[in-house]
């Protein structure tokens, strides 16, 4: 433990700015993945254990589109849309068949999806690691803020994630579709009786959750290595985020993701040997004290 250094960092503007930005950088991609997970759980009541797959697919689709076109915008769109489409197919043909079945059935369908997709990615893209590369527009020196440094791409990435989060929140709370989706989470039969195609809506919501994961993957592709199976560690971390924030709560996912990000950022300064343990400990603590998470509505 290194509390003096930690205190010193918090007291120094440059260190504080850099580490807070680090927390956001680490946290915001997690937030995107976790919010998709949370959305799906909140509305459909299923845990998408295959969520990491869509993060991976988003990254690989973006990589392929960038290789083909050289356009970063197209790469982002390809990552998001590709993951969403695969998500809809997965929901329609597989996941929807185990709704209302026990948890283990859902777990196994997702496990199968992970195995199949990891292998398919290996067959199509090869086993070696890939990197998309930084688009020209972001090949600039890091921006200096109060003596701390923040890379331009990360400012863009955090901005994108926050923007998507805001649009998601507004969409769910302010639009008619969002209101229908929230109603769907509570009473699907009633929503159907009001003339709304609930099956289509389920597929759409599942696809939307996958779009969020895919966007995160596409945003990560310029800075993180692409390998078959890359979704796993992200899946585990986003699970921790979802559990801490509250399953089904998107603001909860945001709070928890930032919390985890800051824990990692300042943990690296203060408790360098225990940052990972800290995450699990936090999750354990939340589960024991408040099983439904910080902002979760459902009682456990």
């Amino acid at each position, binding site marked *: 433990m290194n509390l003096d250094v930690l205190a010193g960092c918090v007291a120094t503007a440059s260190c504080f700015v850099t*580490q807070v930005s*680090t927390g956001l950088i680490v946290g915001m991609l997690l937030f995107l993945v976790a919010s998709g997970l949370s959305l799906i759980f909140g509305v459909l009541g299923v845990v998408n254990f295959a969520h990491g797959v869509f993060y991976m697919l988003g990254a690989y689709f973006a990589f392929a589109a960038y290789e083909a076109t050289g356009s970063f915008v197209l790469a982002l769109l390809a990552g998001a849309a590709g993951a969403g489409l695969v998500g809809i197919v997965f929901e329609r043909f597989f996941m929807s068949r185990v709704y209302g079945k026990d948890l283990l059935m859902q777990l196994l369908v997702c496990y199968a999806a992970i195995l199949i997709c990891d*292998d398919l990615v290996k067959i199509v893209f090869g086993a070696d690691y890939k990197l998309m590369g930084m688009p020209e527009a972001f090949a600039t020196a890091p921006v200096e803020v109060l003596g701390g440094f923040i890379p331009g791409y990360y400012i863009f990435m955090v901005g994108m994630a926050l923007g998507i989060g805001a649009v998601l929140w507004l969409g769910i709370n302010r639009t008619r579709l969002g209101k229908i989706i929230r109603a769907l989470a509570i009473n699907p039969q009633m929503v159907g009786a009001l003339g709304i195609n609930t099956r289509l809506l389920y597929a759409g919501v599942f696809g939307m959750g996958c779009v969020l994961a895919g966007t995160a993957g596409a945003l990560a592709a310029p800075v993180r290595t692409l390998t078959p199976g890359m979704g796993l560690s992200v899946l585990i971390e986003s699970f921790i985020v979802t559990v801490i924030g509250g399953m089904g709560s998107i603001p909860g996912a945001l709070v928890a993701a930032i919390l985890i990000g800051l824990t990692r*950022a300042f943990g690296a*300064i203060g408790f*360098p040997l225990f940052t990972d343990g800290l995450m699990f400990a936090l999750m354990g603590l939340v589960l024991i004290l408040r099983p439904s998470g910080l902002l979760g509505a459902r009682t456990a």
Partner: protein
Amino acid sequence: MSNGANVTGRRVLLGGAAAGAAMLAMPRIAGAQAKVIRVGMPTILSGRVAILGTSSRAAVQYAFGRINEAGGLGGRTLQLVERDSKGRPDEAAKVTRDLINNDGCEIIIDGEASSGGFAVHEVVRDLPVLCIHTNSETSSLTADPKLHVKTAFRCARQGIHDAVAGGVYASGISKQRGLKRWMTCSPDYAYGRDNTAEFLEFAKMYDPAIEVVDQVWPRLFAPDYTENITKALQVKPQAMYSALWGGDLVSFIEQSNLYRLFPNVALFSSSLGDPPVLTAIKQLPAGLHTAYRYNRNYPEKPANTAFADGFTALAKHEPTNWAWQNYVAAQFIAEALKRTNGRTEGAALAAELKGMQISSGLAVEEKLTLRDTDHTLIGYPTAWGRTVPKAPFVEDFAPIPWSQILEMETQWKKQKGYA
């Protein structure tokens, strides 16, 4: 344990294998009469480090292909049977047993990473066929006499050799440029910690002015290193050592680039000099220091270039460090089989391999040696070089003489109680 008993044991096993092959409905021909010598390879062919297995497999296939095209060994051909352990040591133990007991493999090339390597090592203790470890760099596997297995060899770099070489090279640079404040960033598992500790031990020994101001230990296969990079920005070291490897190292360097870390900090990396890593990094900063892993231009010999071309044609990518190690292992096996006239008993092959020397384009000088005392490879390139942004990516290889490495290794063994 007499050799005779071992041989009888083998016969029983093989007889069993023949009977069992019928039972398990797998029409495989086993036994010494077969025209084909089957060589089994447990390795990792799925998941994040699948390239370890795929490039190991391609290298052996390339080597066997060349041997078989040239008429095989006295009319007998070599065949590789590989199995995926998925990176799980218990699975590695199981598939190794299966390869021997079930598929009639008479020789094992252990293409596992370290943890699986130790598991395979224990299987070979039980079922004494010839085994060559090709990917485990953990020193104790062969250096620790308590772990010694008579028919097991290592044809791979060894941690302690690299540590000495790294220490010699890094201390030279640090003295020259006055790099006193060091930081490390290595993956948090046994290899990462051992490798880092050994590197620092020798670097400090050669340059006592070196001071380690901080150490960070990201998780193995972590997707993001930003908190470690920004920590380095706070600590402001002059030099940094990293034992990160593979895709993790690629992520780490690209993410560091965003912060413009390396113009200000001299990076010393144990694993950067591997072609897949170098080619995956889109913006490779110039002047990073890296240990040699593999390079088509070093050692500068036609045989090395031919290997690089041949392997690339088969595998569709440049050779990896794992590739040359497996290629060399296949060559050692072929040579040993030649000398035994095709006898595949573990003890007979081991007797030949002890101290065997072969001429190789991959040797830093003329020959590669499987040292008889501890069954491990020496004479391979242990150089350090500096990166350049375009192919060949690493230049100015500075070899570290083997005499110096061997001297330090002896001292290290004494200190560890290994010798």
